[in-house]
């Protein structure tokens, strides 16, 4: 028996979420009294693999033969083979585009029950019961998993990173290879920009900013904080801001440490995308704006006056 953690790499590098996943997997492995293994597919520098050892895997399986772009079937097959080799009773994914695409496939292969977007360790192991948010984050469901093997996907920024070194032997995973049935023809991406989904601090603004020409102060504030920028849906619909910034039920779902909502009314669909943030600050001129119900801290005031002052105060903080 073991816990297997699948780790994505981004152009050969691991991100914070990988260490979160390992910390989470390790905690569960300890509770169950079994070892934890990690799996990385695709090309990764040896020095990057070295960083994983700090977080407790007994072994780190690697294979970079043909794994340079994601083919769900091929990856799911490889992960399932690793799970079977180490008799994994639990496989952990990150709840993101890649984890979402793979977890269901691996679940079917391993005949395992899947619970996605969890944010804490199980409530109990026998029976195996774990909590997750349902009905667009309105309530928690306690999900009981009846199968011997289980699969979880962990929401980002929900589990504390814990250093817990283990052997971390890197081992080449022998695989039966399948031919990919999907092929990446072209890629179009920006690099070097702080990604909204990775950001720990987010400055977000809405229709209260009146128009795209007023976003300068939002960007300045974000820069002062080292934060990413986001917006409400109307702002991206209107073309004020790029679609990649739209957060909410129909946009990105994020969970930063700090979310500053400026001139955003706080519609339920917006809140659905940000309610897992650790701290929400609302700045709105309407004291009755629903955003204040979701916020931890609030200021009733005119954004055009408050933001520059806040920016100055933060520069000196």
């Amino acid at each position: 028996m073991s816990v297997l953690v699948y780790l994505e790499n981004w152009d050969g590098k691991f991100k914070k979420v990988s260490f979160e996943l390992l910390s989470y997997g390790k905690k569960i492995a300890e509770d169950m009294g079994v070892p934890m293994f990690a799996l990385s597919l695709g090309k990764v520098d040896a020095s990057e693999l070295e960083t994983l050892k700090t977080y407790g895997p007994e072994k780190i399986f690697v294979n970079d033969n043909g794994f340079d772009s994601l083919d769900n079937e091929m990856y799911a097959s490889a992960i399932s083979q690793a799970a079977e080799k180490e008799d994994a009773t639990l496989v952990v994914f990150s709840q993101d585009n890649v984890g979402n695409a793979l977890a269901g496939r691996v679940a079917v292969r391993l005949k395992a029950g899947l619970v996605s977007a969890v944010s804490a360790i199980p409530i109990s192991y026998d029976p195996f019961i774990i909590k997750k948010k349902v009905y667009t984050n309105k309530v928690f469901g306690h999900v009981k998993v009846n199968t011997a093997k289980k699969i979880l996907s962990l929401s980002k920024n929900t589990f504390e990173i814990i250093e817990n070194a283990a052997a971390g032997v890197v081992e080449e995973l022998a695989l039966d290879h399948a031919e990919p049935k999907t092929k990446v023809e072209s890629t179009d991406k920006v690099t070097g920009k702080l990604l909204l989904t990775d950001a720990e601090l987010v400055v977000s603004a809405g229709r209260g900013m009146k128009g795209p020409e007023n976003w300068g102060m939002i960007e300045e504030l974000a820069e002062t904080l080292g934060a990413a920028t986001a917006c409400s849906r109307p702002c991206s619909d209107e073309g004020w801001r790029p679609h990649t910034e739209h957060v909410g039920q129909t946009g990105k779902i994020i969970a930063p440490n700090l979310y500053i909502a400026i001139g955003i009314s706080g519609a339920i669909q917006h809140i659905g995308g940000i309610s897992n943030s650790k701290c929400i600050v609302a700045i709105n001129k309407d004291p009755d704006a629903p955003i204040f119900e979701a916020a931890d801290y609030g200021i009733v005031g005119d954004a055009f006056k408050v933001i520059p002052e806040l920016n100055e105060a933060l520069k000196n903080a």
Partner: protein
Amino acid sequence: MNILVCVSNVPDTTTKVKFSGTQLETEGVQWIVNPWDELAITRALELKESGAGVDKITIATVGLVGTETTIRKGLAMGADDAFRVDADPTDAFFTATQLAEVIKAGSYDLIMTGFESADYNGISVGGMLSEILGYPSVGAVSAVNIVDGKLQIDREIDGGKEVLSVQTPVVASVQKGIAIDPRIPAMRGIMMARRKPLTVMPAVEVEVYTEVVEIELPEAKSAVKMFDAEDIQGLVNALKNEANVI
């Protein structure tokens, strides 16, 4: 090319949900086509209307008879026919298995699911369905096009997108970008929908992999702490020393 869209029947997302035990109290609940599935139907219709070579659009739902209103809405949008598997879709593996039976009984090139449903937020059915069928799959799909009779699928990645060519049949789990505004059924569509074929199929038996055993209400959030617009420093201090986030 034939397209099948998997449609989940969910409470309107602004519904204030109430439960008795683990059962959602359905009184006063407005049921809708899961928003992602609505956009998937919309995109399928756009492709059909553009003359790109879509012959037929089929809807498949796993649900009890009450879901037929939602299915008819999909038909009123413009889908051609529908299947309903007569069962309560309590678990993603159960649902995916039923959908796979519908798909195996027909002939489809593109199967679309939403990336998640607004009830159990399972993020599971699309992946499971593709694996049960042994089809390739693409997740985080933000565009579907037909170029020279071939499917071309955009997938969102960190900081951008990838354009993929795929072997068919393929399962695409769609998200933001797939279509902008959902198609609103017109009167004529609503009239026609009544006569479109809706076939009811019995469910096959499936082992229960997961079940919701309890619903827990989130803790009431502590009240917001307000600062005067003149006291920006107070806010900054709180963020620094109390919340420890900067």
